[in-house]
């Protein structure tokens, strides 16, 4: 019974850290409460920069590869290699070879964010009905118009599935960015000597809520960008997500 109460009080302490600031363990600095907003801003800035850059790189490349129908090996093996290389190793590699700092950590996150976007975009473009593309060509659309007016809109749900995976990964991974000198929400978790146990627990709660919130927002966005014509025939929706179920349309995560 006492152990139950002990962990409840630890959680209460952690939650209090989120809402009210206190003096740090090392003294002199106010941590927690409104200070977390600064960390949150840095966290979102780092994640945002990384995701935007990787979209700018991966989406056009995959659209083009998908359009000309080449580079299947590249598009699929990028995902496999990306999964095999651990996040911590990539960030450590960047720190050891390029040094700490916002740019280097953002670049490391870009490398982590590219594979899901690249693979999902490529698969989505390849799965656009070839007959629809042929019809568009027959109507006299140029290659650029086919990509912009046919392949891109029809692949949009798949592209957003990839972006959503990447965003959630990046937001989660930005937690270890303080190792590279970027003070994100992971700082209280990694430098717990400064913030104390309550700070570590409080920041863990915030990071968890942030990740789930991001997932929910992007799941909504993904639904919003689905062209109405595709929603109507959502009976054969499973092709859009590589591991979704056939027959029924079920959100794989909230």
């Amino acid at each position: 019974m006492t152990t139950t109460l002990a962990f409840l009080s630890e959680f209460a302490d952690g939650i209090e850290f989120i809402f009210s600031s206190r003096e740090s363990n090392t003294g002199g600095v106010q941590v927690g409460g409104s200070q977390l907003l600064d960390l949150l801003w840095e966290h979102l800035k780092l994640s945002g920069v990384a995701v935007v850059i990787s979209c700018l790189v991966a989406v056009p490349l995959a659209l083009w590869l998908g359009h000309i129908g080449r580079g299947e090996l590249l598009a699929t093996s990028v995902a496999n290699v990306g999964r095999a290389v651990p996040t911590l190793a990539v960030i450590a590699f960047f720190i050891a070879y390029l040094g700490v700092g916002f740019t280097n950590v953002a670049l490391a996150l870009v490398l982590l964010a590219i594979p899901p976007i690249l693979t999902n975009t490529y698969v989505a473009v390849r799965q656009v009905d070839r007959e629809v593309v042929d019809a568009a060509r027959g109507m006299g659309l140029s290659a650029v118009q086919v990509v912009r007016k046919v392949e891109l809109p029809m692949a949009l749900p798949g592209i957003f599935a990839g972006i959503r995976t990447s965003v959630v990964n990046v937001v989660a991974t930005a937690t270890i960015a303080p190792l590279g000198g970027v003070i994100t929400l992971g700082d209280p978790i990694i430098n717990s000597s400064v913030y104390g146990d309550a700070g570590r627990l409080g920041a863990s709660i915030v990071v968890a809520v942030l990740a789930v919130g991001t997932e929910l927002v992007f799941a909504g966005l993904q639904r919003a960008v689905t062209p109405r014509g595709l929603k109507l025939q959502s009976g054969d929706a499973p092709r859009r997500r590589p591991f979704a179920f056939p027959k029924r349309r079920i959100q794989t995560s909230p």
Partner: protein
Amino acid sequence: MPIPAPLAQVQIRRRDADSCVADNGFCPDWIVDNLDRYGTPFLQHVYLTVAAVAIGFAIAFGLALLAHRRRWLVGPITAATGILYTLPSLAVFFLLQPLTGRGTLTALIALVSYTLLIIFRNVMTGLDNVPTETKDAGRGVGLTDRQLLWRVELPLAVPEILAGVRIAATTTVGLATLAFFAGAGGLGGQIFSDINFKSNVVVGGGLCVALAVALDVIVLSAQRLLTPWQRAR
């Protein structure tokens, strides 16, 4: 006073190695001399990964069989495992600490929770992709539901199921690099202990990648053994 030749050579080599370490270069000599310090973390890493995937497979497989019979469970199970999958591992390690303390148990719970969604989803896809005609044929020769599941549906779903295990294994190798935050060791602790030293980072990261590739190959070989009919083609 002249130094005997062999000793001088040894000294020169060591000084070279030291200067390489001091300059923070990539030092093959240092790696060869210090390879043994990666032994224990590597074994811890293997243990964490294999145990997490094995436990995760047992749970997810059971859930999938349950959901296969009772279809309404698919949505809730997918949503619940989806939330577990979304939570950042670092946060989960510390959210669990007041309950389970520091150590391997905490790390394993977190790692297992990540494998659930991947394996569950793939077992369900595998079972759903079994052609209706095949199932009808099975029923036609008089198989009960249970026999149909174990003799027809599951064998045919093996490729999808093992694809899930492969993804889960490689993902877990990556996540286990953070397990040292939960006090469970692993290669991440070794990388983190000297994160600015290039040789250390390359060896630690390289071992992770090698482990991921090795596990992938092992599961692929298992798949070939389990699905002899696919080889014949």
